[in-house]
């Protein structure tokens, strides 16, 4: 008879790389939000926007009615990411805000509340790894609800659009939605993490982020109204992200004419949301992202050594 040792046994083996450690952290964090029914509901909401569009496309396609609104890449910019166009509160950015508030706000505040940082930092990771892990997990989660529906729409349009496009144009669209998704998710994630690291009460972090979002929007709105000028638009989070997102599609303007018989006209392209090109908003977002990450980093440094 052979008896095998069931007690503690030593382990020998090779350690994985730091990247693999961060990946493990991301995988764990990514699995968390889907256990929450509210989060699932809003993820479904994001996808249902797209599914609605695909239905419309399908019906229009099968009855040979061209939809001017869906031509070019306007289906992404006006129909999905920036819908409803021109509003200071686009539906999609609200969904994103609510999702990042419920999912992201707990990421660091929960570790602060339960002192889990001690466990993390007694492991073979640095502060930067930790920060990167949390950041990536939030960005990836938000990409699931931004790029995910975007890709679905892209594939649907591939099959049902009544427009003939070259391969280059298709790839241009793909690049544009990817870029647009990143613009929507990356700065938001950084900001949420910053708020999350400021307090050990998750709900407060979420409220802080929501406050930031709405204050930026309403300040811009109120200033625009009172000053009767357009520059305060840049103060609004929604406007900045929507504007930069819109610019992603500028490579491929919608066709002037549509060759399909029966199509009468094309809706005019709405003017740019901000009249300042891409640089100022881009700098603004980059600056905010960098600042937020710096805040988190500083905060982690002060927390790590604490009792």
């Amino acid at each position, binding site marked *: 008879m052979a008896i095998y040792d069931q007690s503690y046994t030593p382990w020998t083996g090779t350690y994985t790389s730091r990247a693999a450690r961060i990946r493990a952290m991301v995988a764990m964090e990514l699995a968390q939000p889907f256990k929450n029914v*509210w989060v699932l509901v809003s993820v479904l909401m994001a996808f249902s926007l797209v599914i609605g569009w695909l239905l419309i496309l399908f019906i229009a396609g099968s009855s040979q009615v061209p939809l001017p609104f869906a031509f070019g890449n306007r289906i992404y910019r006006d129909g999905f990411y920036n819908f409803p166009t021109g509003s200071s509160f686009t*539906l999609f950015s609200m969904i994103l805000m609510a999702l990042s508030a419920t999912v992201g706000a707990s990421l660091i505040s929960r570790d602060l509340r339960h002192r889990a940082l001690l466990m993390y930092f007694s492991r073979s990771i640095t502060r930067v790894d930790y920060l990167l892990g949390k950041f990536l997990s939030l960005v990836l989660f938000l990409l699931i609800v931004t790029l995910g529906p975007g890709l679905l729409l892209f594939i649907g349009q591939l099959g049902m659009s009544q427009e003939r496009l070259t391969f280059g144009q298709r790839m241009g669209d793909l690049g544009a939605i990817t870029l647009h998704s990143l613009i929507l998710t990356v700065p938001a994630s950084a900001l949420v993490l910053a708020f999350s690291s400021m307090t050990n009460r998750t*709900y407060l972090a979420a409220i802080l982020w*929501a406050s930031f979002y709405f*204050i930026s929007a309403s300040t811009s709105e109120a*200033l625009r109204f009172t000053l009767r000028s357009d520059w305060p638009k840049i103060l609004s989070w929604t406007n900045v992200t929507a504007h930069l997102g819109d610019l992603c599609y500028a490579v491929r303007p919608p066709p002037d004419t549509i060759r399909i018989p029966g199509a009468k006209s094309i809706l005019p392209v709405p003017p740019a949301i901000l009249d300042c090109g891409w640089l100022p908003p881009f700098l603004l977002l980059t600056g905010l992202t960098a600042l937020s990450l710096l805040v988190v980093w500083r905060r982690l440094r002060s927390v790590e050594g604490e009792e």
Partner: protein
Amino acid sequence: MIQAALGFAGLTLRGLIGGRRATAAAVLVLAPPFFALIASMFGKHVDPVKLFHGFMFYFSLWFVIYLLSLIYGISMSIGEIEDGTAGYLYLSAVPKWLIVLIQMGVTTAALSAMLFVNLLLTGLAASYGRELVPNLLRDVVSCTLVGGVGIAVSLGYYVTCGLTFRTPTGALAAALFPTFFWEILVTSWPMKFAEYTLTNNLRGMLLPMVFNNSRGPLYRYVVNFHLPDYGEASMFLSILMGLFLITAMIAAMNRSIEGKEAR
């Protein structure tokens, strides 16, 4: 009993100051005057009345009241339960429904006071370097009254959420999602439902009190729906206020304060 009730009022007031939430509230209260000041300092051809009304309309009476009541509504219900202090409160000479009533009454009054400060400062900031906004005090007081109703209604809803849900995240989600999708999105959409949002009712009440019943550019967004007039709005809001007050009291009467071991 009366003394105990007063004790609650004192305790609630104490809870309003101190901690991160007070900082957040202070930021919320001071942000509009700050931006208004910047606008009136650096803006050219600024009309103080427009500036003041714009901030009041888009800022104080829209976000500030909801976010303030959200912060305090959540922290005075599930927040206290989570921190372990609710156990002390609910072992008192005062029935739970009355505790909630006192807490909500005091908080509403205090938040209205904050709103008053906020509006007054905004008005003063808007008049910086120019003549004072005419009827400033009248506008501030009437807007505070209207805003107070909004605070009472939303506070009632948030406290109900905070007392019904078992975790702060659940309560927050239940509070955030409907409010913001309903109040923020639907309010300015040209659709029929828009007349049933809290915000549009508040704005309806504000119309005769501040804007002399003339729909200026601020009300231009009202398309395809009927803006409730003063009577309709006050009726709607009182019903809502009573409803949420009652649900909050019922929730308090039924809430078990569990220890940490339950989770």
